[in-house]
């Protein structure tokens, strides 16, 4: 496919890996912010073809992972009601709350439906006027325009039976929280490319200046990621700390003005609790007062939510780049994608789940955080197939 295949080319990737090796003289720790980028890194073994001086740590950018357990429990309570059709993206259905997941609600008779787009949920509301249709509106800034469009459209079409359970999170406050946390190791960021298609990257410029970290807005394919690392290392080696745009085929500095306006019309900024991290000030969106009649949190009162997180889980430290999945004694044994203990194992884009899916739980738990040997880059495609097979072994 155009704009995908050429960015997965092993020859191009090798040239970039060689270029990174040529300019690297010291150790650097770089965080990729987005869960999709974490998935690409582990899937293609990008961290293993970089020079040993470069360590990639994995950030908090998986909205499925960081949705607070209270919100999952609230979703379950609403979805269990007989008068509700509960719509969600597929990857939220397996996320365990205090009393099971949404698939269990469905198997117990709840009308839980997977939708491809929030706009599909609006059409379900139009087709089922006697039911209350609730959409689980999670995501980062990337998903805010489609979710805002669903609310705006339902309001315009006077679909009073449509509401959204909002659990939106924002990237810049989470990056600031990481940089301010004691023991922070992150020296540079691969910025979230798709978030920036919407928001642009002006919000990241003061972060780069204040904390003296390079931030390179980066795409999601292997060639994108390697070029993002190259640009970050080039800045680090030169002592620079600016925002650079690797993903210029999709991102411009100002973002999408239409999307930003709709987000501004429908949502307002609020404090938000992140699973594994806690409350981060001004790190989420909630519906504006004008759209209160579409606010599921207001329409369905759910009382007495008491959550119980595992005390063993280190996902909070993984999400801040302080630890790797291998550092957890439960990883791959007591904690697996089938029986996740915490945030980073609950979705395919969480760092622990990605490591597990590509067979890294089978590697020595004593391996150092940085891979000791480099894989021949030309085997990038072969490696992907092999590890997928390994990952599917019980």
């Amino acid at each position: 496919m155009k704009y995908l295949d050429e960015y997965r080319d092993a020859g191009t990737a090798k040239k970039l890996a060689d270029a990174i090796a040529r300019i690297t003289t010291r150790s650097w720790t770089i965080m990729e912010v987005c869960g999709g980028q974490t998935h690409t890194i582990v899937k293609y073994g990008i961290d293993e073809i970089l020079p040993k001086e470069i360590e990639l740590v994995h950030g908090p950018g998986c909205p499925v992972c960081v949705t607070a357990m209270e919100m999952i429990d609230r979703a379950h309570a609403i979805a269990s009601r007989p008068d509700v059709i509960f719509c969600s993206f597929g990857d939220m259905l397996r996320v365990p709350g205090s009393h099971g997941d949404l698939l269990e609600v469905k198997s117990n008779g709840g009308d839980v439906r997977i939708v491809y787009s929030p706009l599909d949920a609006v059409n379900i509301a139009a087709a089922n006027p006697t039911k209350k249709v609730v959409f689980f509106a999670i995501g980062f800034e990337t998903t805010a325009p489609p979710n805002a469009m669903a609310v705006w459209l339902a309001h315009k079409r006077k679909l009073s039976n449509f509401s959204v359970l909002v659990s939106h999170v924002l990237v810049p406050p989470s990056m600031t929280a990481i940089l301010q946390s004691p023991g922070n190791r992150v020296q540079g960021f691969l910025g979230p490319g798709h978030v920036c298609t919407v928001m642009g990257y002006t919000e990241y410029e003061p972060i780069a200046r204040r904390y003296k970290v390079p931030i390179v807005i980066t795409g999601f394919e292997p060639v994108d990621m390697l070029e993002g690392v190259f640009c970050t290392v080039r800045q680090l080696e030169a002592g620079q700390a600016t925002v650079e745009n690797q993903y210029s085929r999709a991102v411009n500095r100002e973002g999408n003005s239409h999307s930003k306006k709709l987000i501004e019309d429908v949502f307002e900024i609020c404090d938000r609790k992140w699973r594994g991290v806690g409350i981060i000030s001004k790190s989420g969106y909630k519906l504006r007062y004008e759209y209160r009649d579409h606010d599921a949190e207001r329409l369905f009162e759910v009382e007495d939510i008491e959550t119980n997180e595992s005390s063993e889980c280190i996902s909070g430290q993984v999400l801040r780049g302080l630890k790797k999945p291998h550092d957890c004694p439960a990883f791959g044994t007591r904690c697996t994608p089938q029986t996740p203990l915490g945030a980073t194992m609950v979705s395919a884009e969480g760092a622990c789940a990605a490591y597990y899916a590509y067979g890294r739980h089978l590697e020595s738990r004593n391996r150092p955080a940085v891979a000791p040997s480099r894989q021949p880059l030309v085997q990038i495609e072969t490696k992907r197939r092999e590890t997928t097979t390994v990952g599917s072994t019980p």
Partner: protein
Amino acid sequence: MCLGIPGKVIKTYTEHDVLMGKVDFGGVIKQVCLEHVPQVRIGQYVLVHVGFALSCIDESEAQMVFDFLEKMDQLDELKVPSPATAGAEGGSA
């Protein structure tokens, strides 16, 4: 979650006053909301997330990484002596 897939716009239309389109993802055709890329033309590529086009793909920018690598190759060629030259140098040592 923040998955974005490039696809080619093959048709545009309006539904409930919202600009929509049919987009081709390597042979799979999907309905996509194009309201936030109103400048899009048939045949252009858009980046689609959960049935919603977030941006148009800029063809000239898409080529930049490959141009950069080509320039780097050319620089490397200038630095590495050709076998004939290397042989001559070796002979004179």
